[in-house]
């Protein structure tokens, strides 16, 4: 058990009515212990039924478990307590998008964009509008232009779940685009890039010794996430991380989409 989780568990055992269930359930969620996280969050919610953050946490755990209906219910409960809650608006936008209710998704995301803590919703809104056929090539151009101007947003269009993060590194481990955000929300792109420097060369040499042909992907599981890497043009590397609850098949699709996006961007960037 991680030290933080042990400490928080002990604190909650000492005072079951405290709010410590929030960081405890969040830490368990990030470690992929979703059933335990949900149990802790639900118990907390029973004691604090009008706490927006508790409903929001239950909703995010439910998304990780693939229970979008329950997640949507919980975020609606958040909005009844706190109508401008950016996380709930964003979450409902995501749930409605996944459910194919695109008009509602757009409404929630637009509201999230104007809420104080909603953040930049332009990429998610563009995805929804494009899916609903409201905008076509022009929106694509805007997205591409945005990504070209701000390489950090290179994968913003591809990544919808807030737990997903993606990074494009050159052959020397320098960051070309995207962002690698740790579970606390800090940008650790350069640190990750430095540690992965040279990995493609080593993988290629290992494959040659083993007569295994071209390498396709590297995937590793950690306590908090699953990380997948694949090659991009010019010996670049695409690194994608997602919550441990993400099915591996879905992660592979995400990596493929990020790689496609990176290849298009690199080619476009060189032409420019």
């Amino acid at each position, binding site marked *: 058990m991680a030290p933080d989780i042990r400490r928080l568990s002990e604190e909650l055992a000492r005072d079951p009515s405290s709010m410590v269930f929030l960081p405890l359930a969040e830490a368990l969620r990030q470690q992929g212990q979703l059933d335990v996280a949900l149990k802790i969050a639900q118990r907390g919610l029973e004691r604090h039924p009008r706490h927006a953050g508790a409903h929001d946490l239950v909703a995010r755990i439910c998304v990780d478990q693939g229970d979008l209906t329950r997640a949507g219910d919980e975020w609606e409960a958040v909005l009844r307590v706190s109508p401008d809650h950016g996380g709930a608006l964003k979450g409902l936008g995501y749930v409605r998008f996944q459910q194919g209710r695109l008009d509602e998704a757009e409404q929630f995301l637009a509201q999230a964009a104007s809420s104080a803590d909603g953040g930049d919703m332009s990429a998610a809104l563009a995805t929804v509008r494009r899916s609903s056929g409201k905008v076509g090539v022009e929106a694509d151009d805007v997205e591409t232009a945005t990504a070209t101007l701000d390489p950090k947003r290179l994968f913003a269009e591809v990544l919808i779940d807030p737990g997903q993060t993606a990074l494009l590194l050159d052959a020397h481990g320098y960051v070309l685009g995207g962002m690698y955000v740790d579970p*606390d929300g800090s940008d650790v792109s350069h640190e990750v890039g430095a*540690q992965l420097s040279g990995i493609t060369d*080593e993988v290629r040499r290992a494959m040659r010794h083993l*007569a295994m042909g071209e390498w396709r992907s590297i995937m590793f599981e*950690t*306590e908090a996430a699953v990380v997948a890497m694949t090659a991009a043009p010019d010996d670049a590397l695409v690194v994608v991380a997602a919550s441990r609850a993400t099915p591996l098949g879905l992660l592979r699709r995400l990596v493929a989409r990020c790689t496609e996006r990176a290849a298009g961007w690199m080619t476009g960037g060189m032409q420019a």
Partner: protein
Amino acid sequence: MSSAFTPVLDELTRHRGVRASLIVSESDGLVVDSKLRFGEHGDRVAALAASIFRKARLSARAAHLGAVSFLQLDAEHGRVCAVGRGDLVLMVVADPAANVGLIRVELLKALGHLA
């Protein structure tokens, strides 16, 4: 010559499609024990695999993601799977047809023997 790890490696190598199993020191890439079926490149492969595992572990640490529990490298004609504990990395080289789910379970089970 057999070591304390030989039964673990024997068990892993018995699975269909497994070409080799090795225990490697992550810090220096030296082979601690091995069951090889792919010729004379075991030492080089072990060193490279150990380095790849180390890079994965250090990048996970830089991203505050906790310990790496399992690594899988997929290639055109095979795959490498690895788990690690302390300084030791237990790795398996397998054909594409090998049951990677089963290998993963067996590797994680064998992890206890590395302690």
